[in-house]
């Protein structure tokens, strides 16, 4: 038997690892870059559309042609302020754009327009849970600032060459920097999931790590538990999914502990997550070689956002996750655990509420949405917005079950059919002959047939073996193709047994 390469170089047994974690505390702060949902770029009118042919969404400004100048996109400001407010930040009346200078082939100007010592917003928080006494556990947000994205470098397209596509260059981003308040990889992942959810609710971004509209860097240090002084931190980069973030943090945490336990010191450096090898490795670029020479961008005046505008954005803020959870729990009397599932994304919450309204039955709506709908949506792998069963139709179907027009079993078949054809439930049920049959003539005929085909069971049942009733109802339902009203079949069977005596 050959040994597969170990995904993790940590030679620790689970027990050793647990002992370590008892001694050493992980301290993490995250820097998250999020693309804003604007139609055009931050400083020019080029489209931000994803997936256009290379270098087609470009102009003199984002190509950094000699003589071109930046002009700030109003909507980028709007969304950045909205995000900052959603994160409970203080939005500053005056913020200043600064140039961050460095050379890279996909950075056309040789500098990135960002914000440095006067950012858009500071001092926010994101609640990531609650303590045993019910108090909020929050991660402090250091700052939210507005900046532009770089282009894309493709290293594997041509042998020996790097190919540069500048379609993304200049797309507006916000950078969200947290304080080092996170204490584990799981907590960091929870923070990221809630941050993503918040930004989705605030409708400021697609927040998709796959499409690169959300990117995460981490600062990590360790210290002995009980210690209040922070250890030397490293920066961990190159993580392309939330799962990768968790694994990378654990890997770097273990590495730092090993260094310290063997009497070494942690070097301040950049570590890169190597997903294929499942571990972090130090970057080869010398520390200190990145002197960004920030200075205020003379092509742009300071950004002044009047308090009137901030107030208006606050007023128009879409309902955020916490508020939505509270409202759903109250308005529909749902369990907290159900609410958490139903509010995972704003689209799902929206969908649920529409179904609930149309059905007039929140419980049934919740069950359907959390069960069949989510299962089907996940299986399809398509966004909920394109799901063929529209909430009104699902609401109607739920009503039909309640009113006995279709059976629960038949409803599942109707739902499947609706998913395939997008047709309304009444039509589907009628065409497929799934409308529930409650007429005694038909039901008695099916019952007689079943009893006739199963004489031994029939005899025992009539003789008083009542536990066979369930089996017989099932057989009737089967014979009816799911159309029989099970309640009435039960009654008919019970009275037959009565008569038989």
């Amino acid at each position: 038997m050959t040994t597969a390469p170990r995904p993790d170089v940590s030679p620790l047994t689970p027990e050793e690892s647990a002992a370590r974690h008892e001694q050493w505390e992980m301290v993490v702060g995250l820097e998250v870059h999020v693309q804003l949902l604007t139609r055009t770029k931050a400083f020019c009118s080029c489209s931000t559309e994803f997936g256009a042919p290379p270098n087609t969404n470009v102009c003199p400004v984002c190509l950094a042609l000699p003589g071109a100048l930046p002009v700030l996109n109003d909507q980028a400001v709007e969304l950045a302020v909205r995000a900052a407010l959603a994160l409970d930040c203080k939005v500053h009346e005056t913020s200043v754009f600064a140039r961050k200078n460095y050379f890279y082939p996909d950075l056309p100007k040789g500098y990135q327009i960002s914000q440095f010592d006067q950012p858009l917003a500071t001092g926010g928080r994101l609640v990531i849970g609650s303590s045993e006494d019910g108090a909020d556990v929050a991660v402090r947000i250091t700052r939210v600032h507005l900046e532009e994205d770089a282009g894309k470098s493709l290293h594997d397209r041509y042998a020996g060459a790097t190919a540069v596509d500048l379609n993304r260059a200049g797309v507006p981003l916000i950078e969200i920097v947290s304080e080092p308040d996170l204490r584990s990889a799981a907590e960091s992942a929870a923070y990221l999931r809630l941050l993503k959810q918040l930004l989705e609710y605030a409708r400021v971004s697609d927040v998709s790590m796959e499409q690169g509209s959300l990117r995460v860097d981490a600062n990590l240090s360790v210290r002995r538990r009980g210690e209040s002084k922070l250890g030397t931190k490293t920066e961990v980069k190159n993580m392309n999914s939330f799962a990768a973030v968790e694994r990378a943090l654990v890997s770097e945490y273990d590495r730092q502990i090993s260094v310290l336990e063997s009497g070494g010191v942690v070097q301040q450096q950049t570590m890169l997550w190597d997903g294929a090898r499942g571990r972090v490795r130090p970057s080869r670029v010398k520390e200190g070689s990145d002197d960004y020479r920030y200075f205020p961008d003379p092509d742009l005046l300071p950004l002044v956002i009047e308090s009137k505008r901030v107030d208006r954005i606050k007023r128009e803020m879409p309902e955020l996750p916490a508020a939505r959870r509270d409202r759903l729990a109250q308005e529909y009397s749902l369990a907290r655990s159900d609410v958490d599932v139903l509010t995972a994304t704003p689209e799902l919450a929206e969908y649920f509420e529409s179904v609930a309204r149309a059905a007039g039955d929140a419980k049934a709506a919740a069950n359907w949405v959390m069960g069949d709908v989510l299962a089907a949506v996940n299986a399809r792998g398509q966004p909920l917005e394109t799901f063929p069963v529209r909430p009104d139709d699902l609401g109607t179907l739920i009503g039909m079950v309640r009113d006995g027009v279709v059976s629960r079993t038949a409803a599942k078949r109707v739902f499947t059919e609706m998913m395939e054809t997008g047709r309304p439930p009444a039509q589907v049920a009628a065409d497929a002959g799934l409308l529930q049959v409650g007429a005694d003539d038909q039901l008695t005929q099916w019952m007689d047939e079943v009893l006739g085909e199963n004489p031994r069971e029939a005899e025992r049942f009539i003789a008083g073996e009542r536990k066979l009733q369930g089996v017989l109802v099932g057989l009737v339902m089967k014979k009816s193709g799911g159309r029989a009203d099970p309640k009435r079949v039960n009654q008919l069977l019970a009275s037959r047994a009565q008569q038989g005596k």
Partner: protein
Amino acid sequence: MSIRPEDVRHVAHLARLAVDESRLPALATQLASILEHMEVLQRVDTNGVAPVEGVGAGSTPLRPDSGPPIPLGHPIESFAPEVRDGLLIVPRLATHGEEEAERSP
């Protein structure tokens, strides 16, 4: 503040300028003699004086989130040194995998 040859080397690297080792001392002397004239500033009291930051008054103007972009009068191919399939071509970075990650946006 005197400027040393190694400072010139560092700054030249930051600016991506190749400066011959043999020219470093001369350049350092030249830059130092220019910077000497700047020393007069250290004697000026600028306490409480706000630095010029962006010329002019008011907020930077904002543009609506709509097109069209400023057009290119002739295509990228007409001015770019090397283009393939619409992509700008440069020599591959020796450490490409990591430099990609190094650069924080």
